[in-house]
């Protein structure tokens, strides 16, 4: 199990009902983590439609998670 902190923005925040959460995950990759969270919170965007940053850097989906990582899921927004 890996202990991480996840932050949400825009529609993820609405769907998750919180700005951030600390959690233990069995996944070591971002794709697995996103699937787990999507199932729990009802996220409907597919991985290809959003971006993820770890510890302040945008990373691609193959990035491996480490204990204490801060993961940020960022959906595209277009309002003006």
């Amino acid at each position, binding site marked *: 199990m890996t202990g991480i902190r996840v932050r949400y923005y825009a529609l993820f925040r609405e769907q998750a009902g919180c700005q951030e959460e600390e959690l233990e995950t069995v996944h070591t990759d971002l794709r697995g983590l996103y699937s787990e969270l999507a199932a729990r919170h009802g996220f409907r965007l597919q991985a*290809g439609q959003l971006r993820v940053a770890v510890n302040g850097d945008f990373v691609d989906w193959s990035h491996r998670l480490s204990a204490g990582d801060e993961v940020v899921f960022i*959906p595209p927004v*277009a309002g*003006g």
Partner: protein
Amino acid sequence: MSRFRFSEVALDRDALAAEMTHPAAGGFATFEGWVRNRNEGRSVRQLDYQAFEELGIREGSRIIEEAIARFRLIDARCVHRVGALALGDLAVWVGAASEHRAEAFAACRYIIDEVKHRLPIWKKEHYEDGDSGWVNCERCANPDPVHVHEHGRRVDPTPAGFPDYSRQVALREVGEAGQRRLAAASVLVVGAGGLGCPVLACLAAAGVGVLHVVDGDTVEASNLHRQHLYTPADIGRPKAEAARERLLAMNPMLRVEAHWQRFEETNADALVSLAEVVVDCSDNFRTKFLVNDAALRAGRPAVLASIHQYEGQLQVARPDLDASCLRCLWPEATRDGLVGNCAEAGVLGPVPATLGALQAMEVMKILLDLPGQLVDQLLLVDLLGQETRRLRAPRNRDCGPGQCVRLAKPGSERARPQLELSLSLQDAERQGYVIIDLREAQEVTAEPLPAVAHRHWPLQELLMEGPSQLGGDTRYLLVCSRGLRSRAAAEAMREAGLNEVYSLAGGLSGAEPGPARAPRTCS
């Protein structure tokens, strides 16, 4: 002859009125301003008026045009004296003709108030005691009248009636050189909505010399809570025009060009070539990619922002620094309709106001070469938590040098099979299209589809199930409320190899036959 003019000779009120006779006019009102014998307790015996005539005629004519439009006048004129005037002389004459008297009275009041407020006119008063002094026009005298006497002590380095930039010039990093740099700069702002209004207001007030405003929309009542350049009187007017007028009133030293058109593939390069920095204040991804791509092709910075409810994102594409751009961050498949938009989500005014001010700040950092510029980063702003964070967003590693620009090649080079159809649902049914309603259940309940055969298949389900379930010789027409989601879904189906999937242009709100409408959310 211009409807506003200056005159060096005495005004003939009968001749002026005679110029305005019109068979449809049922009301004709005039206002006359006279030279009076006292001002602020001092006896005046004579006056000299001076005007910055070129600017005055331009702004004066604009005031008359505004009055004609606002009060639906048949005609309106204004003549202002310049030169030496004696007591009792006619200094300014306003005439307004309309069908009914109320509009003529109101227009006279409007014109004289605006002329007094907006025109660069100065008067020199000669007093009975032999002293004399220049009195600023109302605009610069208000709210604290300043009399600059000839042998007086106050010297104002800024011409009266124009912005004084001393408070920003005082910044060590700006200075006089920085102010000259701003005055020589040109900026193109795409979208004069929630983001565009604060961007334009900040840049105009700061003295950025040339502003290009691109917007194809007109002002709506629902814009006013967050688009502070507009007033209720502007409702129905092109935003680009209304914004131009307001910005010039704020700072008459500028050149402001209004482009009442959408930013499209066909005009993108020409528009971007007009300015050294581009600011994306649009409300949809299609336009954001177009702005980004045109900026890449031109090698110019693009300052892009988006908002969603209480949050915003800010990114600066710097092709001039070989830094990351919008495409490095978001895949091409990022489309309007697949994510929330703020017409559905709602928005509080301070959110775009904040992001727009941040955009203006980034523009000024670029123009003035200030430190801390956003390069290879995405700024996330959360106005509820009052939190900002800068995420590092370097060039996409799949993007070799020049790759972004290659992706940004003009759309005309790409094959573009027709995707959107403009027809009625009844015609679509007759022509054999299978109509698919992509809206959510509650939207369907609120506004049921007209009586045509169709299938209800919400967007996200269609995206997942469509590629394996659609197909064969059938032609499909996807439908949503405004044509955004249906277009995004049709594009996704085309990419999955389904060529006979179309989107209803403009959605149900625009389902009458007619030209396709560009996507809109909440500009």
